[in-house]
């Protein structure tokens, strides 16, 4: 397994190199001049030229790219056009907020989706099944920012139970963190829960139709034992992948499988100082180094998550061997 992990890590470096190239080229295609955005509306030509030169944007594209990759290989992702701060510092500063939001959202989602998905599969066609399907339809149809705003108006506005926005670090004040994370995590978690419910339901249904399940039932095992011992064990293997991918895509704020909106909008709405809002601001300002850094970071996270999922697979399913 050690060799497997090592080989995968080496492959990742190549993938990441590809990511930097694609992102770099894409940024060149996006209209918008970072120098003009940085200067606003009042400046003269000399000022424009000076900033362009200082930012290194006057150099040929090939030089810009090679110098970026060269520095990136030594761990230097450059400095932000906007703030002049090192990109690595900026991204790492924003990581805890996003991670804590994404993890909470996925845990909340699992808490709902796991029992709901399993019940709705086991009691297929029952009232619970119908309710679960309505719920998951609702969850994927309603945009998370809408549930977010409704949550703010109800729980912060009318009831006054929760703060409308903002962030407190988990390590500083766990209770404060929890009260601040509740609304955004619920808004994101609702979407994730809906996706997971559907997925768990179909996965369990599939396993229920397997021959060994019929055999288990035929030999007189109780339904509960069959479900817990024979069905869930097998049905949950693909679920691990989905949970992993959901988590990674939430952190990255990427539109994965066209279902997950990511946390960008929610972070902006709730004034949550995470990677999503960083990305949003960087796009607005055409802050290339920060965008490149954030994408590179998210790509790394994706690769690592996938690797972790594969390793977990082998642990969960003895039939799978890592080579």
């Amino acid at each position: 397994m050690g060799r497997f992990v090592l080989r995968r890590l080496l492959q990742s470096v190549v993938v990441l190199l590809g990511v930097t190239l694609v992102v770099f080229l894409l940024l060149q295609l996006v209209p918008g001049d970072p120098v003009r955005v940085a200067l606003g509306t009042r400046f003269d030509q000399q000022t424009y030229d000076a900033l362009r030169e200082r930012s290194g944007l006057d150099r040929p594209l090939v030089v810009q790219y090679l110098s970026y990759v060269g520095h990136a290989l030594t761990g230097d992702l450059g400095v932000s056009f906007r703030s002049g701060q090192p990109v690595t510092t900026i991204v790492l500063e924003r990581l805890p907020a996003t991670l804590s939001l994404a993890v909470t959202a996925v845990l909340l989602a699992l808490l709902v989706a796991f029992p709901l998905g399993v019940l709705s599969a086991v009691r297929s066609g029952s009232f619970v099944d119908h309710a679960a399907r309505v719920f998951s339809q609702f969850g994927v149809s309603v945009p998370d920012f809408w549930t977010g705003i409704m949550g703010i108006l109800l729980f912060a506005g009318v009831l006054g139970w929760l703060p409308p926005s903002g962030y407190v670090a988990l390590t500083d004040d766990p209770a404060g963190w929890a009260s601040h994370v509740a609304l955004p995590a619920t808004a994101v978690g609702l979407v994730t829960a809906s996706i997971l419910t559907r997925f768990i339901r179909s996965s369990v249904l599939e396993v229920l139709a397997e021959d060994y399940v019929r055999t288990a039932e035929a030999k007189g095992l109780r339904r509960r034992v069959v479900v817990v011992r024979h069905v869930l064990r097998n049905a949950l293997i693909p679920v691990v992948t989905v949970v992993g991918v959901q988590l990674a895509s939430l952190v990255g704020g990427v539109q994965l499988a066209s279902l997950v909106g990511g946390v960008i909008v929610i972070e902006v709405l709730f004034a949550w100082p995470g990677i999503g809002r960083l990305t949003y601001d960087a796009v607005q300002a055409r802050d290339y180094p920060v965008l490149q850094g954030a994408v590179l970071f998210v790509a790394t996270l994706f690769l690592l998550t996938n690797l972790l999922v594969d390793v977990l697979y082998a642990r969960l399913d003895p039939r799978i061997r890592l080579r």
Partner: protein
Amino acid sequence: MTRSRIIAAALAVALTGLAGCSAGESVDVDGGSTAAGSAGGTLTAAIGGEPDQLDPHRTSAYYSFQVLENVYDTLVEPDADLKMGPALAAKWTTSSDQLTWTFTLREGVRFSDGSPLTAQDVVYSYQRIINEKLNAAYKFATVKTVTAPDPATVVITLTAPTPNLLANLGGFKGVAIVQRSNVESGAIKTRPVGSGPFTVASYTSGDTIKLTRNDAYWGPKPKLDGVTFTFVKDPTVALQNLRGGEVQWTDNLPPQQVPALKEDGAVTVATTPSTDYWYLALNEARKPYDDVNVRRAVAFALDREAITKAAKFGQATANQTAIPKGSSWYYDYTPYRHDPDQARQLLGQAGVTGRTLDLMVTSEYPETVTAAQVIAAQLKDVGITVKIRTLDFAQWLDEQGKGNFDAFLLGWLGNIDPDEFYYAQHRTGGTFNFHGYSNPAVDTLLDQARTQTDEGVRRQTYERAAKQIVDDASYIYLYNPDVVQGWSAKVTGYQVRTDRAIRFRDVTLNR
């Protein structure tokens, strides 16, 4: 049983998370930021976005200046009527040829770290802007030398008389006096050191900037212990924060709710006319907008009242010139009434029929998007089909720079001296003259007014220029928005300013 253990662990963590969430009921919604026991407390202010950086000479973002207004000083500064008055400079004299200005600094001014602020710091700050060609370099276009003959005296010599020199040196904190060591260490980007009433204590990226009182401040001692800025983009969320007491001040209120908020009285909402103006510009490099009659036709076709109402929900005043009534440079001139017949007639004379107009607006300023829809309806009435193009600001600026538009909508903000708002926009080849307006008569007037030291003559010159600009419909001015800010009942001593400068130095927070 590895698998079941994993699942059990996941469930356990999930349950802990849920338990944590329900603890949220005990949130202190009663202004958790007021530090008990101290004199003034800490005011939390929600602004609409995050500063890009805190180096006053390198940022152009209004969000940065909202913070920096409370951290830095300029040589002079505008009072409530935007007249320039003493700040770091206690007094100044001008030579008879108007080419040498001598400023005497206030005694005993210190930076917030305790080091003295001397004339050398002023020289350093201005030379930094000029030599490194930073954002405000254009404000020093006529400055020949800046010297410090002694620690309390700054002498500025000019290549031409510059009647708006004071506005250039104090109009905003982009020309603030910075500390050399703070710049050279690079700390100025996140931990700037100024001489203003507050100083930056911490900056958490994406979250908050915390200011604490500068006890070395030369002016009256600020009453607040500190000010915390939070960045809340969504106005509905900002309002909820204000209502719930999480913040005590915001300028990010949903415009459609302002009238109701004013009546409701739970929070204080104050408005004052700003010197900002919003306008429509037609691209004179493109036919048929090079024809003054076509531009005038558009000006007659617009119902400014309707546009203003739609874009700003009544928090603005329609205007046909740049600057609003009550401001010292106001010029009363209203040649255009809403007259579609006149517009059609002018268009007919110009031979324009069935025209499609590409109107570029930006989502950065949602009011331009709303205004564009009203304008489209009004122009349809005179036979012009408007195609609205909504872009993000970066792309919008790109298109504007390339001249890829028939028309655009934008605002010009924080205006103090007319040179600032006429020269760049209407002088042939001006730095913001992207619509290609060129009238030699206006050029001459603007050049003369720039160096005209007689205030009366200067005013007349600008009025003649303003009249010509409006008659030529170089810009079709639409309205002056109000500055709208809201604060909690606990806040006293705050004044809404027409230039949108946010000063917390006189504010008290009552318990």
